[in-house]
């Protein structure tokens, strides 16, 4: 067995990955604590529309006179939350699906993978647009009926996490299946079977630890993909809606008011910067993890 610590050592020697991880931790802390430190009226609608950045409003204010820094942090919170939990959902689905297909093999495997191929060929985001706008009102009604009033405002977030999670698992399933196919013919699995271990035991005790590295890599790469999808939907007006904020929504607001006569550049530049830094850092970290854990996939 290879020294399990070695991938982490490789990762720590990769400066881009270390810097990215630091930036991501800072961003997450800022998003979590920032809004609490801001003055209580920062998110309120005021008459001070379109103030340029100043010492009072570091990022300026938006159309409704809300402090943009506060909005960007709120957006960071929701975008990161949706990204992480959407990716976790897809992780669970993908790993279970891929393991079943790879471990059983044969006809079951080919049917399951053909199904994945079919799903790949369907324009996912186009469907999500329709699906989310159809299901959101239904979900709200159900929540109110079951006395979950406090959750109604968050129905979009829940729906986004579930639907993005349930559509982003395809790549994960393919990769896990490939890994399982390779692993199950190895001698340690044969040995485990020959001493009479159950299939559950083999999957959880022998296969799972060997998959963890690769799964972690693709989990990291799925987070930015989900954040992108979420902001795509929010940009088109189907995702997160005001008074909540997400980066996609902020950018969509900015794109609507910006024109050659009124250059409200701050509305665009700050959300775009926050989003870009996060996505680039996540991709750098993902690439670093891939190089460390899965050298054969290196690009």
């Amino acid at each position, binding site marked *: 067995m290879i020294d399990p610590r070695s991938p982490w050592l490789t990762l720590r020697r990769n400066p881009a990955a270390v810097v990215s991880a630091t930036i991501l931790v800072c961003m997450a802390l800022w998003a979590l604590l920032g809004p609490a430190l801001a003055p209580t009226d920062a998110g309120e609608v005021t008459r001070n529309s379109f103030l340029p950045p100043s010492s009072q409003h570091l990022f300026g204010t938006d159309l409704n006179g809300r402090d943009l820094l506060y909005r960007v942090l709120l957006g960071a919170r929701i975008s990161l939350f949706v990204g992480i939990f959407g990716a976790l959902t897809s992780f669970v689905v993908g790993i279970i699906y891929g393991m079943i297909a790879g471990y059983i093999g044969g006809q079951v495997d080919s049917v399951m993978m053909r199904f994945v191929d079919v799903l790949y060929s369907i324009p996912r985001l186009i469907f999500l647009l329709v699906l989310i706008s*159809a299901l959101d*009102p239904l979900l709200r009604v159900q929540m109110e009926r079951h006395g979950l009033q406090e959750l109604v405002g968050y129905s979009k977030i829940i729906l986004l996490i579930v639907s993005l999670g349930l559509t982003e698992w395809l790549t994960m399933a393919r990769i896990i299946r490939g890994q399982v196919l390779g692993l199950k013919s190895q001698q340690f699995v044969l040995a485990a079977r020959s001493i009479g271990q159950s299939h559950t035991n083999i999957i959880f005790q022998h296969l799972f630890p060997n998959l963890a590295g690769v799964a972690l890599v693709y989990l990291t790469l799925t987070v930015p993909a989900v954040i992108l999808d979420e902001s795509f939907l929010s940009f088109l007006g189907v995702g997160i809606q005001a008074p909540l904020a997400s980066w996609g929504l902020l950018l969509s607001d900015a794109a609507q008011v910006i024109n050659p006569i009124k250059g409200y550049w701050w509305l665009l530049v700050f959300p775009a910067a926050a989003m870009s830094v996060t996505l680039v850092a996540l991709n750098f970290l993902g690439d670093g993890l891939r190089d460390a854990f899965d050298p054969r996939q290196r690009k």
Partner: protein
Amino acid sequence: MLRFIIKRGIALVIILFCVVTLTFFLIRLMPGGPFDRERKLPANIEKQLLIKYKLDGPLLDQYFNYLGDLLRGDLRLSTKYRNRSVNEILAQSLPVSGILGGIAFCIAAGGGVFLGAMAAANQHTWIDRTAMLGALFAISLPSFVIGPLLVLIFAIEIQILPVGGWGSLQGLILPSITLAAPYAAYIARLTRASMLEVLTQDYIRTARAKGLSEETVIYKHALRVAILPVVSFLGPLAANLLTGSIVVENIFSIPGAGGFFVNSVLNRDGFLLAGVVIVYCALLVFFNLVVDILYGFLDRRITLYD
């Protein structure tokens, strides 16, 4: 070969059938009808409207009638853009999307392959590093960041290109670059990786040993093989450009099918929505099929089966 095409053709029909069915019932799940306004319509007028737009009667009958109309090539009337048929709207807006997508396709494929080949030929130099860093940024940033930023720089600060709109050649530059950027970057990474692998092979050493110039070796001998993974990406590329154009058309106010698609979701304009979805899915599956066939021609080692 023929069997392969027939099988994929059957798959196309099945996929389209599922897509139509899903869309039809999903739209009906949405609360609020297409004729809901601030003031409620009188019952008899609403009934007349429902009959005109064939939205009356039991849901299953409506569904089978709709399937029948689709088989006759009739995508029905739009409930929002009154008296215009979906066929007519699509006939006007699809060419616009097509032109934008076509230009973006050329930029992404041509630019990506060129950059990737150049990066691989100059591995470990500043050209390689800059190209790959740029590619990572272009992949990470969504088009609704790149697009408005390009507008801010080129249309608002230096004012050399129009902010948006359709009709002029200059107006095409920013949208097509915005649409192509992430895919050009992805293709550049793909080409570079595959090129580096090809450059280690024996026949390249032979070509160099024959005394061929470095340009001939790289662009004539190596690229021909290194381009194969790019070809298999061209199908998904076409698909991604379709989806991506929805956002880009929105940013640059281009009257393509993408804008109609978003509005039809918001307006509960069921038949228009279904029409766009059907056309998009059909195009997608068709592109994938073309790429698979093309791949078989380019790489003789691959045989097409089932």
